[in-house]
């Protein structure tokens, strides 16, 4: 199919079916933000270098700025708007708020999505594992110490 021809995709976003009409090459990021009305996922670099656009596709952290909507298929997409309802997501957000991680806040949705993927794989990550898992997520305000701490709190390794 020509990349320039629009098609209607039925996406599974945050547990709901949502129809999005777009060309198949449109990155999932723009489909989410501008077609599906979900603004929580952010645009930072368009090249997979900053992590602000991180979502989950079938539970796998994915840079939505590099993922054509045509490739998503029946994959279950979870965004920051949907992670609230997940028990690990809730713990992370509670920890994030308890120590008020954010400054400008722009990267934080992507940070939480990456942290969520880490805790699903590694429920009690070490300091090195936290840094390794979060290295793809830039924070221009440099909230990194509190990101580390919030992940330790959410994983039960530290109390507030």
């Amino acid at each position: 199919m020509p990349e320039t021809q629009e098609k209607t995709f039925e996406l599974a976003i945050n547990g709901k079916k949502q129809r999005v009409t777009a060309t198949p090459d449109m990155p999932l990021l723009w489909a989410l933000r501008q077609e599906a009305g979900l603004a929580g996922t952010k645009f930072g670099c368009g090249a997979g270098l900053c992590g602000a656009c991180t979502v989950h596709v079938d539970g796998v952290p994915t840079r939505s700025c590099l993922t054509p909507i045509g490739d998503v298929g029946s994959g279950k997409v979870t965004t920051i708007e949907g992670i609230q309802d997940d028990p690990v997501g809730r713990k992370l957000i509670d920890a994030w708020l308890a120590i008020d991680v954010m400054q400008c806040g722009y990267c934080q949705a992507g940070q939480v999505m990456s942290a969520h993927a880490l805790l699903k794989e590694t429920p009690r990550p070490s300091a090195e594992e936290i840094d390794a898992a979060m290295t793809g997520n830039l924070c221009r305000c440099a909230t990194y110490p509190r990101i580390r701490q919030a992940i330790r709190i959410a994983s039960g390794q530290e109390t507030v």
Partner: protein
Amino acid sequence: MLDTLEPMFDPAISRRGFLRVSALAGGGLALSLTLPVAADAAEAAEPVHLTDFVTIDSAGLVTITSKNPEIGQGIKTSMAMMIADELDADWAKVAVASADFNKARYGNQIAGGSFATTNEYLPMRLAGAAARSMLVQAAANASGLAASELTTSKGAVRHAASGRAWSYGELAGPAALLPLPKLETLKLKEPKDFAIIGKATRGVDSARVLRGEPLFGIDARFPGMLHAVIETPPAHGGRLKSVDTKAAEAAHGVVSIVRLAAMGGPLGMPDGVAVVATNHWYAEKARELLKAEWDLSASQGDSLTRFDSEATRLHGLGPAAASATEIRRDGDPTAGLVGAAKRIKARYAYPWIAHATLEPQNCTALYRDGALEIWAPTQSPMPGVDQIGKLLGIPADKVTLHITRIGGGFGRRLANDYMLQAAAVAKAIPGRPVQVLWNRAEDLKRDFFRPGGWHMFEAGVDKAGKLTTFTDHFVTYGGGDGNPHHSSRLDGTHFPADLVPNLSYRMNVLDTVIPMGPLRAPASNALAFAFQGFLDEVAEAAGKDLPALMMELCAGEGMFARLETSWAKTVETSRARVRGVIERVVGISGWDKRPRGHDGRGLGFGFYFSHRGYVAEVADVSVDGTDVKVNKVWAAVDVGNQIINPTGAEAQVTGAIIDGIGQALAQKIGFTDGAIEQRNFDTFPLVRIGAAPSEIEVSWVMTDNPPTGLGEPALPPVVPAVTNAIYAASGKRIRSLPLSELA
């Protein structure tokens, strides 16, 4: 989706006129009421607009308006805290709204210069106290008790003797009918009575951000909204010669192509071709089909390598033969150097760097019926509104500006170029809201950069190890008028001026078309590295360490002059406060027991005074070959007698420290013939989590001075603290940045 970008109350329902509390130039305060109170009683159903800062509904929910742009510095929260505390609101029942731009009502609305805490601490508290006083009077009127018998706490007026209490919700209606109190009748709290100020308080929008609510400029959404990207000259100073738009016009989703002519001068917008489409993605794809020809003659030879060579040549000549302009001369620097027991000479250089806010520049606008409504993530709305008026040929009062939450400022959004672009595109497609959004390459390309610079220092110490002579031949950049740009200026008051008998500051200015602008602690963020780095060398030659040299230079009482570089305002620097933070950081870091063997680990020190804040920092650094790891940083910070929001304040300090480390590690912008070379975070690497120290210890040095801002002053000293620590660890002096370029 729209509602989060709109004010929480309609300014049109204001019945009170303007409560305007503003700082006067002389340090006094003005509380002005510009309109009389309307006689109609507030209907109980509607929230009562008590003052321009305080609205209360019948259930007692207090909505506080925070007037300055929120860029992550926490001001939306801390200014609301100032108001809420003097109001004696119950913080659990406070909502905070962002003000739209409204010069008449709010005066200056700017995020810059770490000014807000300094300038707004008293006015905002008075705004809270004014509302409180009206509520107390309303309770007095209702009860027949004297206002002096009544107290307030947690959102209620109370009468201790009888145990009676009136909630603010029930008092708001009658209170709104009362005249605004006179400024001189308002009594502010003693700090010991603060219930909100000084308590760690979560950002008022944090939970909303984590729910993914559309708060940022880029999140603005309206039915039928279009998306624009703008092709701009590949090199600075370029002009559009011609453009073939046929292929782009035919591309999928494209609605319109709009040509933009440069306007607004150095802080304005360049020539451009806007591609307007139904989705940002379609606009980006169509942009690639534009065939534009540019006149790039203005920037030929405007190359970093040429400027580097020129600076080297000028330093080789020396300031006299290079005809360097004298900035300041005290005593006899030439004789001072000749007569010195020891002479120390070194050359320091630092690169151009970009702001790289994570939210790329963007702006949303709607033009209809001769008026423009605009949603802008701007740190400084006022100049943008004025320029838009000129651009569109409409009066400034036909421009309605909503200030959105901002995904990082760092000074970038003090310029309003993206607002002009959005206004120009919106005017070309009246009736359709349109969002201009830059991609990362555009954002790095069209920054207003922190300029680089070069310093040739020479100093002399006498037999007793006292610094007697200090000279700097500074080569810096200007925009073409022969003067250095304000972000690349060395002022005659710069430390250690006033403190050394023989002193000479001279400069040569290299003109460039590359745009310059303030970046977090402008000028200071570069000068701190050079001056504190060189003074570390001087201290060593004098047989002492940098903290000891600084203590000696700042001995005694009194003040010395210091120019606030970015705002061209001279403020006095207190010797005692300099010593206070140095003593503290030396104490908490174990400085006196530091390793001294250049054997892989070392501590380094840096002090800087900027934006009225005194900050001394010590970095603990490991060096293994070319691998540099900052293990820990200690910061001693004096910003006066009150930390407004301790959790936010600590975040500003730790963030600034890691930001500074990131700059030193690997950030550099290069350019050839006016074209910026970096296009994304692979070549302009922002600091990542692994480079953040595992610990940062912040210690507040409380002094009896009014509180001042924290967005900037903790950044400058960390750069020399790290580079001086690298020397301590490795024996290798770091005289140029970034560290990634050093062998």
